[in-house]
């Protein structure tokens, strides 16, 4: 089971994400993004979409994955709250995501994430699982 925490950073937001394996890592990073954006209590999913990401290597793939999820929110007002990863290798990922609509009446944005960056990004695979620091522009 993955975990994430918020670290200190002067101008932006820095997360540390760890998963038991690669799939768990990508799933946990997605959960981290959602919880960061709207708080620890995520609403229930009302629809499902397939999200695809691509990249050369896990770092690029991670950034593309989180960017897709961020776009769902900023561009379409949907928060991906469940992430079922169905395909994953170093070049691509596909996930079936349960999404809730962002309702400004009932929900508020805790952190205004504007972009996912490559800063200090290295996906590390070791005996504790898979982890990375991720810096987001706010």
């Amino acid at each position: 089971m993955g975990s994430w925490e918020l670290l200190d950073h002067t101008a932006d937001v820095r997360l540390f994400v760890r998963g038991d394996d690669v799939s768990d890592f990508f799933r946990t990073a997605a959960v981290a993004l959602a919880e960061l954006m709207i708080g620890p209590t995520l609403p229930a999913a009302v629809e499902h979409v397939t999200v695809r990401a691509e990249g050369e290597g896990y770092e690029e793939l991670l950034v593309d994955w989180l960017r897709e999820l961020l776009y769902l929110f900023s561009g379409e007002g949907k928060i991906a709250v469940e992430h079922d990863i169905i395909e994953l290798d170093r070049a691509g990922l596909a996930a079936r995501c349960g999404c809730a609509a962002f309702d400004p009446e009932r929900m508020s944005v805790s952190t205004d994430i504007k972009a996912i960056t490559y800063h200090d990004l290295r996906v590390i695979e070791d005996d504790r699982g898979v982890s990375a620091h991720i810096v987001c522009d706010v």
Partner: protein
Amino acid sequence: MDIELVQKDAYRWEVPRTGRMSVPGLIFSDDVMIEDILRDRGPVQVANVATLPGILTHSLAMPDMHWGYGFPIGGVAAFDKKNGVISPGGVGYDINCGVRLFRTELEHGRIKKKLEELVMELFRAIPSGVGSKGRLRLSEKDERNVLLKGARWAVEQGMGSEEDLVRTEDGGTMEGADPGFLSERALSRGRDQLGTLGSGNHFLEIGVVDEIYDDRIARVFGLFESGVVVQIHSGSRGLGYQVCDDSLKIMGRVTLREGIDIPDRQLACAPITSSEGREYFSAMACAANYAWANRQAMLHWTREVFMRVLSMSPVDLKMNMVYDVCHNIAKFERHMVDGKEREVCVHRKGATRSLPSGHPLVPEPYRDVGQPILIPGDMGTASYVLAGTDVALAETFASTCHGAGRVLSRKAAKQAAKGRAIARELEDQGILVMAAGKSSLAEEMPEAYKDVDRVVAAVEGAGLSRKVARLRPIGVIKG
């Protein structure tokens, strides 16, 4: 990388040319701020930028510099048009984040009793905050015109006059914009956000002229002591961010393809002459135009609010533009390099253009005194109006600082703000604040930022700009 800075004078530090740097770095600062800069690893970023193909003269950084994505914020770098590169990281995510200042005939005393009403009405008239939707919902055709024409589009819709455009950098329209290069996502994000302020450190501020340093220039700019002014700090919203995101993805591949060896992947770039380089510039110009249209619309609505609340006519109010500058941009400009004039691509990321008197790009009304430079303090602190100089033109590709950078993280700021009512503290200082977001006030509190007075003193000390006036906020709206 271990950087040993060499101090050249009271305000200049050189990053010596070593390793793969093609030019040295030059950091403008003072004795106190340079310590922060060293701690923040800024010089490493200045050195990294100096390794990019086609960079000319120096990799530069202003006194308000701090760490950024690839390029430092407060960084300036110019590249040869023929063999240099263009890089989205050298512009920033918020393309044409900039500042617009406009003045009135009003004296502070005249609006004291109406201040609360003005702030409330402005808060109502100009949507702010995360995900806010604007009053202007654009059709595809409208959006295309906004992206092509910038502030001129807004004026054509009746939101301002030609006079406003004269007093805007680039006339509020960047040439070379092509909406065809924007992704569907960027276009879709742009459709509903025109006319919104944004969030974070963006604001609209009513202020008063606190001190005049140069009577002659202040008069030409339309500023007088105790005069009421309005300042807007805002950018290209979600559209600009999407353009940057889309471009970084493409540039990553181009950098590999062209065999450009970069020390940091966020320096991803493309040759200026490549199709990707030209497409990025066009897309960036669209986002720049979007930001200018946005600030022009907000100026118009501010005029409407003031006229309504104060029951004044435009002729009496004279809410006229002082100037509008961008501080995240890449521009093609002509500069002297090694004694010869050439066309270069200047990247300013958290830096403002600073042109001297006599320069043809300075608007005609200001040509005798130099280009106005607008340096916003952050919420609750002073802002400055400066004028451009010959020294900046000669040394920094006509560039100067843009404002104060952060010193406290948002987490630390929130921690420091615990138990304190920031809005109340500001009110006690005579500043009325209305914020759309709950935590933003704590995150944006004055102690979270560097000292803008020091930053401005340093650029003046270095000769890059001269002080004209200092402004003090009295009412702020933010997201």
